[in-house]
């Protein structure tokens, strides 16, 4: 993900984001609306929890048996007339796709929104090879025209409002209709007209996939706008880049996910467009189909008994929409195409914790648990975050002064005698408080607290001292 190199740690990026009034307003408006709608859509099903546990079980079974299902997928895609390529990492995936586009003789491709190609930085790799990639999802187009980055998995331009989008279209879209206003239907119509000529001229389409069915070699793309259907059916060549965790054993398994995904992501009972194809059908749709199966850190993640549950993710975004941290920082602060709670556990696992941003992501959560509660595949995100924190602490290179503080406080807190002694010392701290009985300022690092919040003054007597004085210590 070359565009994310040099991202600052989460707290620094977030500091800027929480001060951006336009961003805060856009995010609160959008996430409040979508999470209310989701709760209603989910509430309509009385077997939601059962569906959720079933989905979890299907994913866990499949992930534990990739050695069976991936070769089966390859075999059936090949049998149906497609070609399967295996990519160990982002560079390999990008090289495979670039070669395929060149072989097709194209210098332009149309794309359906795809998280896998965001992850590999495919657009940048294609651009370096002189190939233009046109994003056809409305929000992705907004992001692309603005030389911006996506900030949400489902709604990549959630950080922009209609006024900002109107201004962007008038400035960057050479075929924007005269007098284009900020009215959403007119903005959509302008994008539609702009994209139509691209769809009709394209010879190569690039997509990801929501699901890949091993039993029949079928790929599934779920979308709302119909741009996906265009990209998946009009070009002569179709290249789909798909993470290896997207495989499902059979169509019966797919049914469960098609019930969970739309309600969780767009709060719809059913999404408007579901495109499913198996290899090549003579005379119908692309005649040249390539499936690029992407690892890029997934097998390493699979080796982690706690962290592997992140691979169950179906990219619905429900966790982003309920996250109080995401709502206040937006997606860019997470420095990854995968923002929000799922990004906080996925990015450090896929990319490692070598960079400032990846090392800080496990700590970018108050552990409130709202993400786990809404996750349609029951990923216990707080559990993984805490596990990642323990790893971070166990890595002797980091948190030098913090380790001393936590070592010392652990020494005190595990002993009632030392705790009582510390309480007697802390009690003098009450003299720091003024007449208000509140402490207004403390030295670093506790100043991070008192910059915005008062601290309580310690009482003259702790509870245990009161108990010992009034009731005695004999138990």
């Amino acid at each position, binding site marked *: 993900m070359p565009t994310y190199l040099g991202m600052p740690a989460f707290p620094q990026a977030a500091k800027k984001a929480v001060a951006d009034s336009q961003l805060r307003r856009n995010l609160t408006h959008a996430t409040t609306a979508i999470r209310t709608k989701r709760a209603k859509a989910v509430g309509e099903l009385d077997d939601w929890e059962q569906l959720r546990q079933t989905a979890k079980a299907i994913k866990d079974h499949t992930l534990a048996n990739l050695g069976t299902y991936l070769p089966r997928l390859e075999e059936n895609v090949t049998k149906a007339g497609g070609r399967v390529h295996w990519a160990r990492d982002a560079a390999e995936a990008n090289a495979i796709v670039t070669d395929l586009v060149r072989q097709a003789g194209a210098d332009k491709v149309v794309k359906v929104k795809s998280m896998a190609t965001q992850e590999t930085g495919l657009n940048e790799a294609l651009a370096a090879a002189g190939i233009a990639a046109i994003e056809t999802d409305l929000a992705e187009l907004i992001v692309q025209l603005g030389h911006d980055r996506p900030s949400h998995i489902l709604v990549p331009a959630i950080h922009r409002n209609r006024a900002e989008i109107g201004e962007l279209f008038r400035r960057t879209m050479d075929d924007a209709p005269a007098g284009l206003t900020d009215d959403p239907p007119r903005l959509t119509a302008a994008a539609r007209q702009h994209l139509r000529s691209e769809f009709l001229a394209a010879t190569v389409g690039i997509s990801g996939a929501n699901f890949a069915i091993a039993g029949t070699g079928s790929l599934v793309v779920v979308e709302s706008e119909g741009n996906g259907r265009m990209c998946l059916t009009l070009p002569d060549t179709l290249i789909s880049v798909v993470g290896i965790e997207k495989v499902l054993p059979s169509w019966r398994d797919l049914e469960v996910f098609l019930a969970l995904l739309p309600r969780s992501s767009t709060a719809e009972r059913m999404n408007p467009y579901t495109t499913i194809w198996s290899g090549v059908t003579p005379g119908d749709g692309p005649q040249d189909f390539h499936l690029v199966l992407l690892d890029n850190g997934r097998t390493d993640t699979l080796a982690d008994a706690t962290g592997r549950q992140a691979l169950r993710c179906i990219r619905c975004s429900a966790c982003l929409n309920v996250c109080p941290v995401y709502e206040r920082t937006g997606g860019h602060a997470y420095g990854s195409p995968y923002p929000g709670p799922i990004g906080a556990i996925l990015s450090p696992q896929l990319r490692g914790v070598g960079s400032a941003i990846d090392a800080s992501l496990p700590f970018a959560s108050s*552990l409130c648990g709202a993400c786990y509660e809404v996750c349609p595949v029951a990923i216990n995100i707080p559990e993984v975050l805490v596990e990642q924190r323990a790893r971070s602490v166990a890595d002797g290179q980091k948190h030098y002064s913090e380790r001393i503080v936590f070592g010392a406080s652990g020494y005190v807190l595990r002993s*009632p005698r030392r705790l009582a002694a510390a309480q007697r010392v802390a009690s003098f701290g009450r003299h720091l408080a003024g007449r208000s009985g509140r402490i207004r300022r403390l030295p670093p690092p506790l100043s991070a607290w008192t910059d915005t919040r*008062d601290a309580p003054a310690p009482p003259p007597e702790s509870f245990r001292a009161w108990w010992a004085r009034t009731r005695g210590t004999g*138990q």
Partner: protein
Amino acid sequence: MRIGLFVTCLTDTLFPDTGKAVVTLLERLGHQVEFPMAQSCCGQMHFNTGYRREAAPMARGFAAAFGGYEAVVTPSASCAAMVREYHPVLAGGDAALARDVAALTPRVHDLATFLTGVLGVTDVGAYFPHRVTYHPTCHSLRLLRVGDAPLRLLRGVRGLELVDLPEAETCCGFGGTFAVKNPDVSAAMCADKVAAIRQSRAEVVCAGDNSCLMHIGGALSRMRTGVRTMHLAEILASGDAA
């Protein structure tokens, strides 16, 4: 029933009145409460920040201090959840400790569910003539699943006017060390919580965790809102002045 009070290190050190309120309340209901002096801390802050090695002896100490009690009551849903959910993890490979922890954890209750679930009371005989709103703390809501137990208790308090808190289930931004490691996001979350409390026009905001109340209260006092925080136990222990 032999009841042990697990007061928690935070309440012990900074909010002793909450501990005294739990004692007053349970004694008023006719129960005897003991405070085992061997208790210290459940290890939540260390565990959640990644310091498992430091947290492990605290899980051991907790099991030793409370092993003999039929019920352990604590005025912190968050610490109760820590004991129930993660002490088994911390016991790890130590088979004897794991057995002790497994036997003990189902007997560990937060105050609200102990009153409504174990003792089966919702009217604790309290009198508190004030306009109060209730903040369901994240761990009480999503880890311990106390449900409406605190609200049923508050509705049983004479004179108390209970008002809804808008966006009640949104985190206040405390999150333990999160409040210091990500101070800007934490403060932004707290600002919205304070705005919701102001919107409720309550004079007292109440919760089952002093940690979250310390956070919310710190902002309420910094902004001179004139709204105060009170632990649920202190409201339930309030009696007639007469």
